[in-house]
């Protein structure tokens, strides 16, 4: 059994119909519940819920503060490599994008780490493309072993791995694994991912199950907003989280909201998601799932980020570089996507602090895996 069995019980067009046929009355009813189900989530992301955005935001703020307090966790992404054997038509690292490729050496990693540490970070997210001949389990193990004394929490966002590989990484101290399905629309997925290992929709869909079985502490999910109708895709993403939470009950879950951003040689998004849509989605997640960590990256604008951490987000990055070596080694190497909020870490730290929130550097400890 895996999520695929659950996934197959749903039909994209039917889900879409239910979302778009949601009535005002159903929205009101879902808003008034104290424990909300996936059906309530579906109502709250519907167009019928848009008049209730302020009400949703206030409720989301309250629930978030109750569960997480007035805190925002900070992390920095570190891109290890932009090598990639996949063609993803929206991504700067896509195989058919003729750019100079780079994979950080141990020495370069050390240099990048020292910059990230000097900004105060204690949580790091390692990011790569998918190039198994260079950037593989052995490379990950070397890099993680190298940096693990410098960070309390290490997360990875790399190609899907096998269950035993996740287990090996958990054993050496990987805290969280992020893997985004991009879209849950199987045919559309195939169009956007025509070549490479990633073109296998089901293998990717099955990945969070493999992570769950490996004992990793936290799994991060998300869809690439802009590939398909965000409402339908987000319902499937919530369905996935719901299934995982019931199955791998010892694992934490987080959700991210990558909105398609301009990158070198890539297409314009097919579906535009406005700021108010994103806020509706974030609030709907919180109203449905009080324990979900909600992460907002620097893909988003200053205006949005100035406000979003008060109404549901729990985790933010700042001063991010999305190219390998971007912090110091090779500042001009190809980036995965353009950063929208270019403010540095200190500015974001002060923004959070001024709003009466506690910016948190450390919320994990190495001791939990040094056994």
């Amino acid at each position: 059994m895996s999520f695929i069995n659950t996934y197959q019980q749903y039909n994209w067009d039917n889900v879409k119909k239910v979302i778009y046929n949601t009535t005002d009355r159903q929205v009101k009813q879902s808003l008034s519940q104290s424990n909300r189900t996936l059906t309530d989530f579906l109502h709250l992301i519907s167009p019928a819920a848009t008049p209730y955005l302020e009400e949703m935001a206030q409720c989301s703020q309250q629930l978030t503060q109750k569960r997480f307090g007035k805190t925002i966790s900070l992390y920095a992404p570190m891109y290890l490599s932009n090598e990639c054997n996949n063609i993803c038509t929206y991504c700067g690292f896509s195989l058919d994008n003729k750019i100079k490729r780079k994979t950080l050496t141990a020495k370069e990693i050390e240099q990048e780490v020292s910059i990230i540490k000097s900004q105060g970070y204690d949580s790091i997210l390692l990011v790569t493309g998918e190039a198994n001949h260079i950037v593989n389990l052995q490379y990950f193990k070397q890099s993680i072993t190298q940096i693990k004394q410098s960070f309390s929490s290490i997360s990875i966002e790399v190609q899907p791995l096998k269950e035993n590989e996740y287990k090996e990484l958990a054993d050496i101290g990987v805290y969280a694994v992020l893997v985004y399905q991009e879209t849950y629309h199987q045919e559309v997925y195939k169009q956007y991912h025509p070549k490479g290992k990633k073109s296998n929709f089901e293998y990717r869909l099955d990945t969070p199950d493999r992570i769950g079985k490996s004992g990793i502490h936290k799994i991060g999910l998300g869809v690439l907003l802009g590939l398909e109708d965000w409402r339908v895709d987000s319902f499937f993403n919530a369905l996935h989280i719901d299934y995982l939470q019931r199955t791998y009950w010892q694992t934490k879950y987080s959700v991210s909201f990558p909105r398609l951003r301009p990158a070198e040689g890539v297409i314009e998004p097919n579906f535009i998601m406005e700021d108010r849509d994103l806020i509706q989605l974030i609030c709907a997640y919180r109203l449905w799932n009080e324990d979900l960590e909600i992460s907002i990256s620097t893909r988003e604008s200053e205006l949005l980020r100035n406000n979003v951490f008060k109404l549901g987000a729990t985790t933010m990055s700042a001063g991010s570089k999305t190219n390998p070596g971007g912090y110091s080694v090779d500042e001009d190497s190809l980036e995965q996507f353009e950063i929208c909020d270019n403010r540095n870490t200190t500015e974001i730290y002060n923004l959070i602090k001024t709003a009466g929130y506690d910016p948190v550097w450390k919320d994990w400890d190495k001791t939990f895996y040094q056994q």
Partner: protein
Amino acid sequence: MKTQVLKIADKTFHSRLFLGTGKYGSNSEMEKATLASASELVTVALKRIDTTTDTDTILTHLQHPHINLLPNTSGARNSKEAIFAAQLAREALETNWLKLEIHPDPKYLLPDPIETLKATEELVKQGFIVLPYIHADPVLCKRLEEVGTSAVMPLGSPIGTNKGLRTIDFLEIIIENSKVPVIVDAGIGSPSDAAKAMEIGADAVLVNTAIAVNGNPEQMAIAFKKAVYAGRLAYEAKLGAITDNANASSPLTAFLLD
């Protein structure tokens, strides 16, 4: 009027209100509320502490002579992880006191009774003063006593929910039978919940969310301080019995007085 002093292991406490340190908007807000509460025991999550420096931002706000630190193992999913965390906490915070928290379920943070019992037994052997966070399970409390726990910390309702004393029937059994102090932990949402816990004979309460997350943590801390004091005072004065009927007359036995 003073209430009885509470003794746990080698320490005595004048305040029966224990606090958590998480969820505050800033460390100075946490410090203010903690001072206002007059609490003498505050718990800090090891995972939030930077053990590599002497100037951790949380700990520097808790450096007051009357405040004792109670490190906790939040994040541990089993006894093995908790024991490692405990050892690190003892070294870093220079105290052998420990709030043992083992919650493998990150959603409701419900404590694992089996792992908690195992870890308590081992940690007691290693010289820790163990205060385990547990379900309101009277049998588990006796089992923990047998392996040398210094107190028990049963939950009032799921942590962070502010739902109050939903487990009150079991808390009463625990209090009735316990040889170690009973600290009601988790779920206490309002000063009246705290007062109620004290009235039924809890030795102390531990509060975090209800003080940290509201319009004015400092003011709420004072409200809790007074509620805990009032509840304890009432308990020591012995509350009148609760009956279902008024009993002004004795219809069945009045003839004896004739």
